[in-house]
C-alpha cells in the first residue's frame, strides 16, 4: 500500500470516529437547561466536515485500492460474507451520513434561538443525532470485521 492509500485509510477512520463522537456529544449539549449554542455550532461544523472528509478519503481508498488489492482476498477467504454483506452495506449506508450531518448543521446554525424555546425541535434533533451515531457505530463495527478479514501483505 503506498503512502497515499495508507493516509486515506487512516484519515477515513480518524475523521469518521471524530464525527461519530461529536454527534454522540451533541445530544448531551441539547439536553441541558441552558443551551450552549456556540458550542453546538462548533460541534455541528466538526461533525459535518468530519463525515465529508471521511467520505472523500474512504471513497478514494475504496474506489482505487480496496477493489484491486483487498476484495479478492476476502472473497477467497473463510468469511466472504464480510465483503458481500458488510462491506456492500457499509459503503452504501455511509452515504446517508453527510446529508444527515448537513441537516443538523443547518438547523443548529439557522435556529439556535428556536432550539432554546422549542422542545420538540430539540427532541427531533436529538433523535437525528442518535440515528447518526447508531448508523455510525454499525458502520464502524462492519469496518472492524472488514479489517479483521484482511490477511497477507498487499
Amino acid at each position, binding site marked *: 500500500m503506498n503512502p497515499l492509500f495508507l493516509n486515506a485509510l487512516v484519515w477515513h477512520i480518524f475523521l469518521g470516529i471524530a464525527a461519530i463522537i461529536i454527534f454522540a456529544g451533541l445530544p448531551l449539549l441539547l439536553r441541558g437547561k441552558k443551551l450552549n449554542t456556540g458550542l453546538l455550532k462548533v460541534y455541528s461544523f466538526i461533525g459535518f466536515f468530519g463525515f465529508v472528509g471521511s*467520505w472523500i478519503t474512504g*471513497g478514494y481508498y*475504496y*474506489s*482505487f485500492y480496496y*477493489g484491486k488489492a483487498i476484495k479478492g482476498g476476502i472473497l477467497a477467504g473463510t468469511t466472504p*460474507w464480510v465483503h*458481500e*454483506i458488510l462491506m*456492500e*452495506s457499509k*459503503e*452504501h*449506508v455511509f*452515504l*446517508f451520513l453527510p*446529508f*444527515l450531518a*448537513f*441537516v443538523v448543521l*443547518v*438547523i443548529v446554525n*439557522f*435556529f439556535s434561538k*428556536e432550539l432554546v424555546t*422549542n422542545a*420538540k*425541535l430539540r427532541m*427531533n*434533533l436529538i*433523535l*437525528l443525532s442518535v*440515528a447518526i451515531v*447508531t*448508523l455510525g457505530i*454499525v458502520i464502524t463495527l462492519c469496518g472492524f470485521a472488514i479489517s479483521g478479514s484482511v490477511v497477507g501483505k498487499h
Partner: protein
Amino acid sequence: MSGKLKLTEGIILGSIAAVVFVVAITIVAELAAPLKGWLKNTFYHHWIGKSLIAVIVFAGFSVLAFAIPHKASLEGINRLLLVLVALVLLGALVIFGFFSYETFLK
C-alpha cells in the same frame, strides 16, 4: 425567517430524496447489471457514480422544494425530521437485508 424555514425544509426534503435514491440505486444496480456497468463506465467506479448522483439529487430536490411557493413552519420541519429519521433507519435495514438475502438466501 421564512426564507430560513423554507430553505431548511428544502434541505430536509433533499436529504429524504437522497436517502431514498441511495437505497433504490443500490438495489436496482445489483439487480440490473447494465446500470451498474453504466455507473462504472461513466464514473470509473459505481460507488463514485452513486455518491455524485446522490449529491445532485439532494441539491436538485433542495432547490426545487425551496423554489416551489409554500408556507414553511417549524412544525413542518419537525414533521420532516421525524420522516427523515424513520426513512434513514428503514433504508439501512433494507440495504443490510437486501445484501444478506443476496448472499445467504438467493
